[in-house]
């Protein structure tokens, strides 16, 4: 029998549809980083993103038999991650917004998991303040704009790929990203003008 590490994505999906846990584990190893970071970019909270990541792979396990291969696996996973993250935000709107602007940065474990350990304390505080501000600005965007912007900016995906994930035309994605940038610019300017010291 072929080792899961040597399997293609399609073979892994077939294995998962046959309830093969080793195939699922291999899929998790391949894509957990992408799923977690995309979810974190949308939700703005690490713990919630972890929860969503688990939900995404659980969903893959349950519906692998429905995967027809119209889109590639990566697109399908991006789509599930976006939907699960937005759904999480809708179901936990108050909670998520509170957390996204109130992250505990002093927690050693949280810093350990991230890549911030190269920063000095002052830089870390400044960076975290910046992160809070970015999260708040992102949270102010409508869902579609936020998703398109995050996929483009933080996942570095091409418009064509984003269009497939969001099931929209390329021009529509372009428009969403453009409007997202204008709204973010306005949000940042408003913030700095109000807090001008």
């Amino acid at each position: 029998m072929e080792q899961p590490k040597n399997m293609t994505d399609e073979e892994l999906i077939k294995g998962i549809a046959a309830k093969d846990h080793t195939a699922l584990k291999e899929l998790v190893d391949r894509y957990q980083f992408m799923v977690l970071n995309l979810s974190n970019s949308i939700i703005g909270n690490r713990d919630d993103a972890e929860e969503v990541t688990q939900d995404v792979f659980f969903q893959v396990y349950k519906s692998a038999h429905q995967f027809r291969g119209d889109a590639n696996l990566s697109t399908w996973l991006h789509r599930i991650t976006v939907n699960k993250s937005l759904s999480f935000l809708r179901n936990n709107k108050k909670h998520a917004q509170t957390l996204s602007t109130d992250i505990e940065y002093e927690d050693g474990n949280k810093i350990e998991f991230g890549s911030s350990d190269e920063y000095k304390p002052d830089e870390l505080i400044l960076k975290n303040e910046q992160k809070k501000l970015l999260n708040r600005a992102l949270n102010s965007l409508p869902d579609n704009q936020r998703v398109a912007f995050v996929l483009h900016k933080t996942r570095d995906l091409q418009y064509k790929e984003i269009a497939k994930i969001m099931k929209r035309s390329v021009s529509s994605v372009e428009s969403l990203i453009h409007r997202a940038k204008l709204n973010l610019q306005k949000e940042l300017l408003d913030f700095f003008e109000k807090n001008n010291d």
Partner: protein
Amino acid sequence: MRCKDAKKRFIALIENKLSSNEKNRLEEHLKVCNECSQLFEKVNSTWAGFNGSEQIKPSPYLWTRLEQRIIEYDEKRNSIFDWLRLPGRWLQPVAAATLIVIGIVIGYYLGNFPTSETEALYANAEEREVVLQDFFESNYLNTFSDGFEGSIGEAYLSMESDF
């Protein structure tokens, strides 16, 4: 360029999306306008956070938790399918429910069925009256109907005068 127009072009400048003419005009404005210049620096450094956005590492327990969840899901799913597959499993409660219903129906009819011959005779009020009448007559209980009318004292005196 006015401050208002300059601010609208900050992100475009950062992302190098302005025409060379617009870029020159904006940069000239930033050189002479201290307020816009400071604001641009703040927006620029914050926007950079999107470019090198911090990548987080998954928890080492992600797979363990997920595997536990799918094991529980499989067990639950299998138990439902097993239950549906084995007729004995779902026939038992169906048979038990049927027996209970039959028992209730039988109990209902037994409870309303006349239990003795007397109760059958009392089935309606008229029949009951006739039966009582027959009963009194057959046991000489209606002989008082031709007795003395009046008080007990008068009856006693009347009986004494007869002797």
